[in-house]
């Protein structure tokens, strides 16, 4: 199947503490194309720059230099307002630490992106319920994050990432804080979203087994892509 790349990064660099004596070169020139509907894993040692790259892909951060286009949008030139709109509508984030809003129940958490997307209260509520059912949290919709286990929180977070029906899901070590059994559950959810809904998924993981389940495994070392191979899942 011939698929056009949904995102394309060329020569992306990222430096921190720019101008100071301890300037940090975290990304040193990343070239990466990801096709629509692809399931990609990014692996690498801690501190190699995986999260930094993910944040740039997710329009949360801007590179120091390089080119980045996402669905024909020049992300370097895009204004802050456009980037927040892209984060809202095209991208769903799943974090290692869940980042659910405290003291706010599961439904309200899932509704949040839809609130910023300008959806009506009724629609938000209906869709939030639907999504919580989908991730198997139908019984816990009114629960606060404090009352949920790690795996349950992560499933709510995935439902939230799906709220605006984005084409891309970015998951930064989503199973990093979970035991292997609940991690498995979360991983199954990503497979489901990939296979049934055709989402483009980029997954950062430390687990070689989980990486092996994806279609492509990219290895990052010291801010550079040092390896790229096909995963176990067939295209």
């Amino acid at each position, binding site marked *: 199947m011939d698929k056009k790349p949904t995102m394309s990064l060329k020569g992306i660099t990222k430096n921190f503490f720019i101008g100071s004596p301890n300037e940090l070169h975290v990304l040193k020139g990343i070239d990466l194309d990801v096709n629509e509907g692809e399931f990609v894993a990014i692996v690498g040692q801690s501190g190699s720059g995986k999260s930094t790259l993910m944040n740039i892909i997710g329009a*949360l951060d801007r590179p120091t230099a390089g080119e980045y286009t996402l669905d024909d949008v020049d992300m370097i030139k895009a204004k802050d307002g456009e980037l927040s709109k892209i984060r*809202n509508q095209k991208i769903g984030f799943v974090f290692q630490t869940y980042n659910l*809003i*405290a003291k706010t129940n599961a439904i309200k958490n899932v509704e949040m992106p839809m609130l910023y997307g*300008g959806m009506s209260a009724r629609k938000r509520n209906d869709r939030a319920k639907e999504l919580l059912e989908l991730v198997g949290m139908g019984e816990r919709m009114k629960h606060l994050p404090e009352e949920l286990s790690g795996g349950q929180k992560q499933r709510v977070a995935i439902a939230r990432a799906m709220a605006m029906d984005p084409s891309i899901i970015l998951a930064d070590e989503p199973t990093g804080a979970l035991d292997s059994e609940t991690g498995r559950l979360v991983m199954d959810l990503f497979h489901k979203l990939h296979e049934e809904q055709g989402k483009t998924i980029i997954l950062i993981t430390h687990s070689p087994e989980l990486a092996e389940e994806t279609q492509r495994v990219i290895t990052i070392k010291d801010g550079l892509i040092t390896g790229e191979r096909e995963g176990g899942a067939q295209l």
Partner: protein
Amino acid sequence: MMLYENIRLALFSLVANKMRALLTMLGIIIGIASVIAIMTVGNSVTQEMTDSMASLGANNVTVMLQQKEEEEESTKEGVSFGRGSRRNSNVQEADMITKEMINEYVEKYADSITAISASQSVGQGQIKDGNLYANVSISGSSTGVFVADDTEVVAGRFFTEREMEDASMVAIVSDTVVTNMFKGENENAIGKEITAYVGDRFYKFVIVGVYEYEQSPYMISTTSDKDKETTLYIPLKTGQNLAHNENFATFTVVTKAETDPDEFAKTTKQFFNAYYRKNRNWQISAFSMASMVDIMSTMMGSLTTAISVIAGIALLVGGIGVMNIMLVSITERTREIGTRKALGAPNSSIRVQFIVESIVICVIGGIIGIILGVTAGILLANWLGTPASPSLSSIVMSITFSMAIGVFFGYYPANKAAKMDPIEALRYE
């Protein structure tokens, strides 16, 4: 839609930190409460004063003796409050306004004068009968006094012309006296003889009438009802006989409708002061009721201004408190702000969220302040014996002002939150 969500969110975070929110609101609460309280009392006191003074007759010009050396201290109209009657008590008879002066005055300005109302104080004393007593100040009064004071006789009658002419030992007493001496039976008191003790003297009067005592709104009384001193009216001539004095420390002129009372007060003052040029201690002051009302209103106005300034400072401090707590709240919720941005919240949404939170804090503080202020105002007005009149406009103004404080002091923290870098916010520990 968004606004409702933001208000819900703001209430949420308030409920989560009740104590902190309350402490933050304190400045706003105090500021708004004092403004509302002073408005509630101030309105009613001013209203009451204006009404009662107007009822005394805006056309009236009061003429009274005034001590000379204190001239500099008195207000520019030459009026000083409260102490006037006390001073009169140590006035020498030779200093007083004589009948001759008044006659000459009435003759000269007959075109402007309708009537003269004058009284002669006999002194303060007590009516006694066994264990029963009532405090009174005895005042020989012309018929005009009853009209000017708006005194209503609820039992019995006014003095007859004969009684006035003959200097009869008759009296019109207050219902307070009747309560103390005759168990409150007004009819019962008519025709009864009472003995009033003034210093080492005593006088016997026959009661011919009872009037309803009304507490003056601008006199703050701290005595109990039972010990209250009320006026015991006797005919003017009787008073002059008992006081061995035919002259006056004060009298009131009822002017004709077409006369300008303020102008006439000036003329009157000049006229009488001609007699007092050589007097070392005393002079004459004359003022219209209308000017009294003006002065009272001005005084209430400056009092209101002073309290408003204090309230303003409280509100400023309160506003700074709100700003401080918003900065704390934003720091605590840095990760939440980062998350919201990651989910697509534009900067403007974050800004609105925190401004709304700041407004909600201020408005709730304002509402608490209004409730406390109205309550305090009503209590104070009751204590002063005036009807409380919490004004709707001041309540609406307070709410609006609270919102404005919320916007003003919430903007900086909210803007700080809005401009946070999403990554730094998400990485915040």
